[in-house]
């Protein structure tokens, strides 16, 4: 199958439109998922922690 200009136009106008909308929805769900709020808050606060040492298990 050869990739023609028309095929690319069709792809970008159909699949190209919807996959980005789909990805956006996934991102929004991930961002606002209630269980994710705690790790987010923790990550935002943790960088202010002044313990300037790596963890050694």
């Amino acid at each position, binding site marked *: 199958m050869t990739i023609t*200009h028309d095929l690319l*136009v069709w792809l*970008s106008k159909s699949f190209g439109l919807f996959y*980005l909308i789909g*990805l*956006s929805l996934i*991102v*929004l769900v*991930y*961002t*606002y998922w209630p269980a994710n709020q705690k*790790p*987010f*808050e*923790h*990550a*935002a*606060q*943790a*960088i*202010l922690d*002044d*313990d*300037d*040492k*790596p*963890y*050694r298990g």
Partner: protein
Amino acid sequence: MIAQLTKSERQSALVILLALAVVGLAMAAGGRHDPFGVHGAIVLLAAILGIFGVISGYYAPEPSPDRLDSYYDSPTKFGIIVAMVWAVIGMAVGDWVAWLLAYPEWTFDAAWASFGRLRPVHTSGVIFGFGGNALIATSFYVMQRTTRARLPDQLTPWFVLFGYNLFCIIAATGYLMGVTQSREYAEPEWYADIWLVIVWVTYFILYMRVLARRQEPHIYVANWYYLAFILVVAMLHIVNNLAMPISWGSAKSYSLFSGVQDAMTQWWYGHNAVAFFLTSGFLGMMYYYMPKRAGRPIYSYRMSIISFWGITFFYMWAGSHHLHYTALPQWVQSLGMTFSVMLLVPSWVSAGNALMTLNGAWHKVRDDATLRFMMVAAVFYGLTTFEGSFMAIRPVNSLSHYTDWTIGHVHAGALGWVAMITFGAIYASVPWLWKRESMYSAKLVEVHFWLALAGTVIYVFAMWNSGIIQGLMWRTYNESGTLAYSFVDSLVAMHPYYIARAVGGAFFLLGAIIGFYNILMTIRSAPSVETQNAADFPVTGPAAAPALQPGE
């Protein structure tokens, strides 16, 4: 430095350097009188210097296991100093070519001193030399702190830094000899490109190894931005530089693409270099250093995630706005224009998030020039992304394209956003890294800030004026329907703005030189133990002892 490597790392370093020396020798022999041969000699020389360096420290005692109790910051320190060296070189050459545009007769009678060869030394010097080294150095710092994991070994970060700077040197010396692919921001030829792929993939793997060792369950958002920078730049670099050398002994190659596909590939690369090199990486920097310096967490963590994906999804499609009114199909132009306009949303979300983080810390912004650098960077980020979306609209582009407005836009971003956030991050990290109470002189930071801001404003206003005058003159018709002004007429009209631009650039360069002096004096000053300024020295408790690292 060699003393920080373990015995086996010293051996690996020797093997790598020997292999590099062989490659350099082969290039020098195969290239003969071609610039390729000169580059072979440079590679060989670099490898030999490295071999001597490793041998001189080869029998030093092995680093003690105590090193694992602290982060490995020597590569970051080195990277910051090299970034400042490149800043001074790149900006000095930039100001030089700015004066050449105002007074073309000031050139020397030598091919290397022509505008066409010097200009890429400026662009690569500031983007890759200054920006790239600053990104690599700060990413090493940030990835360790945010994952609470030390770099997995001592050799890889040095390989990345030295390898990357070898690429920068090959690039800059090549331009002076006339070696170029004529692809903007991708000028280096095929062999330099292959070397950068090796270095860059090593960098990516190093980052993944640190993330794999992380002790924080969630990966802090700054790392996402840094990783997008590394991953996407690798992808762009490889595709855009697909080329066939004319022989194994020649610097010259031909691109695999031709015609409008070639143009589209180049601007897909070019605009995403702006997106993922000059935006994503520096946003990573901002999301770590700004909250840290302000002592406040990022205003909205969720906004930072949404804008991350917005920037990643949208930027990829924006490049075709560089090719409005060309042979590129109209719908591809419209696609690029639409995505460029949509980009305003995640861009302003990022800029707003940064400024809202400072809300409540404005007294710190007033007193602390370092934080003010970051604040002004966020403002310029907002301004430039607005301007960029606007300029990507086809009818606006018909006025702005090919004029100095574009140059003004680029420098609002490069000076106002990229350089300002970098200087802020560097002024924040230098006292932390070298365990100093504060910078050598807070006054000089203040002087640098005002020079940088004044220089940027002068530069950008000069180019706005020049660009719009130019654009209007090019589209003014007389009564008989022909162009009212010749190109030379518009050139004469631009002359005063070119002088103003060169003056603005000189301010900015002077600021960078003062900054470099201040950094060197900070390093030379005695480490502090007692009095600690909370803003400059976040380490508290027992860790506040000078904590000498092995090998220092």
